[in-house]
């Protein structure tokens, strides 16, 4: 056993060689949540404002279009100038420029026309997190969250929030479409190891605000993106929806430590961030204690199994003649309680908890 000094300066004892195992992405304390801004978006907050989950952050144009007006001899409004419908620009009275719809000045063309992005309809983007607005620029609005966040592998959709509901029995269970109903409206569902496009479509139709899964079929992600684009193009705005994928593509159990954290947060309000992909928990949310010697298998037939790192093994020859450094792992019993399996696993296919 070797003694190491962790970041928090507590000396702990861990098995020799464990430091060669990749660590699970740790929870982020007070993360920065980025909301991308498009031309025409109107922030409703200013840097320094404190926002709570659900507070309006910005007004987003729906069906934006570029409109142009001849400048003639009027003064040129600066690019980025925002205006409401019918507002006077570049002068006053009959000489003023007016657009049908609210929007933002893009630029003045050399041929003497003022181009602006305008829209008649808007949707409000709500904060997925409690925190402080850190910065706003033409590209993004950044909120400094107060609570911790669990990092994920990818996220699709728009930042969203809702009450966390664990909708499956275990981290490797699947949530089927027929298990989602109106009771879940407004909730963020923990959907286990996989959800298909049928389940995603039904969830959106039932007013679910987001789903958290271990894995997803790549084709379903493409289909979900297309579905969200179609919804955006429709007349009526729909509530935001986010899919957060914790571990990658295909059917993949929710990592055990993250599962425990989500079970602990059930019933609380959580946010889902897209850039970067995050599960945003309430300030003061508790986290499970991480055992440094606990590991999870991240690839192969034992995917998702957890166990205890015993010791480092020498480089071993594996299938297809590949040589890999391995570790001996005592897997947690599954079939026969109390009977543990000892097995060698490549270091690259392991992830440690602490």
């Amino acid at each position: 056993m070797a003694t190491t000094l962790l970041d928090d300066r507590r000396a702990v004892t861990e098995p020799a060689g464990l430091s060669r195992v990749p660590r699970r992405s740790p929870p982020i304390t007070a993360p920065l949540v980025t909301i991308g801004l498009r031309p025409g978006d109107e922030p409703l907050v200013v840097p320094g404002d404190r926002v709570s989950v659900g507070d309006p952050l910005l007004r987003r144009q729906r069906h934006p279009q570029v409109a142009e007006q001849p400048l003639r001899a009027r003064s040129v409004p600066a690019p980025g100038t925002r205006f409401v419908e019918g507002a006077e620009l570049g002068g006053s009275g009959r000489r003023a420029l007016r657009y049908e719809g609210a929007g933002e000045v893009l630029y003045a063309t050399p041929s003497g026309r003022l181009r602006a992005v305008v829209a008649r309809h808007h949707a409000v983007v709500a904060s997925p997190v409690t925190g402080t607005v850190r910065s706003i620029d033409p590209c993004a609005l950044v909120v400094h969250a107060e609570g911790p966040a669990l990092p994920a592998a990818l996220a699709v959709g728009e930042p969203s929030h809702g009450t966390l509901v664990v909708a499956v029995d275990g981290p490797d269970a699947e949530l089927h479409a027929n298990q989602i109903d109106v009771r879940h409206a407004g909730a963020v569902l923990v959907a286990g190891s996989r959800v298909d496009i049928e389940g995603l479509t039904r969830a959106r139709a039932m007013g679910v605000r987001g789903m958290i899964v271990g894995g997803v079929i790549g084709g379903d992600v493409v289909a979900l993106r297309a579905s969200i684009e179609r919804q955006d193009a429709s007349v009526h705005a729909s509530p935001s929806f986010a899919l957060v994928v914790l571990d990658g593509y295909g059917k993949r159990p929710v990592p055990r430590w993250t599962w425990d954290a989500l079970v602990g947060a059930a019933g609380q309000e959580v946010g889902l961030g897209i850039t970067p992909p995050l599960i945003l928990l309430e300030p003061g949310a508790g986290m499970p204690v991480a055992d440094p010697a606990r590991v999870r298998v991240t690839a192969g037939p034992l995917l998702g199994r957890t166990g205890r790192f015993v010791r480092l093994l020498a480089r071993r020859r594996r299938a297809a003649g590949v040589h890999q450094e391995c570790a001996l792992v005592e897997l947690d019993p599954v079939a026969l309680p109390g009977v543990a399996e000892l097995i060698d696993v490549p270091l690259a296919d392991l992830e440690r908890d602490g």
Partner: protein
Amino acid sequence: MTSEPHAFFTLDAGSATLAAALIARVDGRWRLLAADAAPVGIPGDVLLRGLVDQVHAARPEALPDPAGWPDWTRVESRTWPPPRVVIAGPSDRSTDALARAFAADGWNVGTGITPERAGALEAAIALRDPGLDLVAVAAPDGLGGHEHEALLDVLALVGATAGLRDDLPVLVAGRGGSGRPDLPAERVRRTHGAGDAVPAARELVGRRRDGWSNDGRDAFVRSIASLAAVLDLRVEGVDVGLDAGTRVMAGPDGVMRRLVRADAALVPPEAVDDQRFLDAIARWSPLADDAFAIRDRLRNLRVAPWRDAAGDGARLRLAAARASLERLDAAWHDPARERHHDARGADRLADPVPLTAPDLVVVSGGAFAVPPAPAVALAIVDILRRPGAMALALDHARVLAPLGTIESEPDRRRMLADLADDILLPLGSVVVAPGLRAGHRGTLRVTADGASTSLPLTPGAVQVVDLPPGLSAAAELESPDDLFVGVRARRALFRVTGGLGGLLVDTRDMPLRLPDRPERRREFLDTWQRPFWTTAEP
């Protein structure tokens, strides 16, 4: 390096893995003593400490006081995700040369902003992307009519965005539209044309990322050039990484050609949501899984490239590497590349690409680190097909890129002269000789150390002759038909060297033809590759 330590480390920090090596002066020359690699996230000191312990246990006298290892010199290279550039201009035709120049330098080139491709809104959205590192405007002089108006319009749009974003540098390639007040002069750099745009762009963007001095891809190119000078050979270097692919051809007189492509990464980010891109990669897969499963496994290769590296995972990884090499090779031979603008903006022919095999091909990168050497050799031969003979070697410790950061060329050459045997793992030699007609038979005679072996030479096949590392041999081919080995000949003689993969004699077509039907293609690939994989389970 300013001083000569008795031992030092090299560190190559890639996007997926970190490779470390321990080099020390032993018996008056530099030797590679140990090397290791681990997924990103594993602290470098964990690897370095392991290397020191390993060497100290086996040969303590080779190292200075091991307790002092944290202070030993570290020669480091690093690769970043490619910088992103959007090319704007009055027409697709005018932006083409600029887009190609950036793509050939490894930049991630976004969809162009031209009147044909993007309206004002799409253009404004593209220019406000927070991940954008640079906007480059193609502004050729002497445009007339609509193109001139379109250029002024684009400059006005870019100028408006530049006024809003003080973090976005702007590069204007050409003198067109000069004198317009649209662009903030202090943030804009003008160049003569596409030819000198990329160096200027590197300078602009480099300020935001602490320069390019230890950029792993540039350093790899420098090392290959130094290696060619040291060995007095024509050397080709190929590196496939998670974020880009690099190919360089160098001779004793320096770099002959260099290409870095973001789209030649192992699984480029844009492939994840692009089914056709994934299927183009999967085209090289010999796995029998269904298409959905293979696509998801490829996507996971992007998410966590170090996982699932044995068995079918290794085969799929090498299939992805083959597809990367294919994209790199297509860009290398792109006929449109043959014309480009020089530093003064004049249109001229680029240097021709050598068509015959180099003397030595050095492959590097995590994609080639895991599979068995013979399988790697076959992957190279499948894609980088040039008639003639060449030796293949693997930069197994990923030392070339870090050594390329050594500023002094003489120092680097001295180092490489000492280390070449240690850092270049011989994969074997390859003779590519198409031309033998179906039903005909030739003869392959290999002579080494006075002993000779004769084998029948069959058309459309890859034959392997066991030729261990360190052994040099003469390979003689005789055929009733003309073989194409750089020249057409019925009898050809090559000097070849041994390696872990032995000698590969390839009489398949050029270019390699694969069946169109997926199942038939998979069987084909499986039949070719099976002998090259060691299939015995542990």
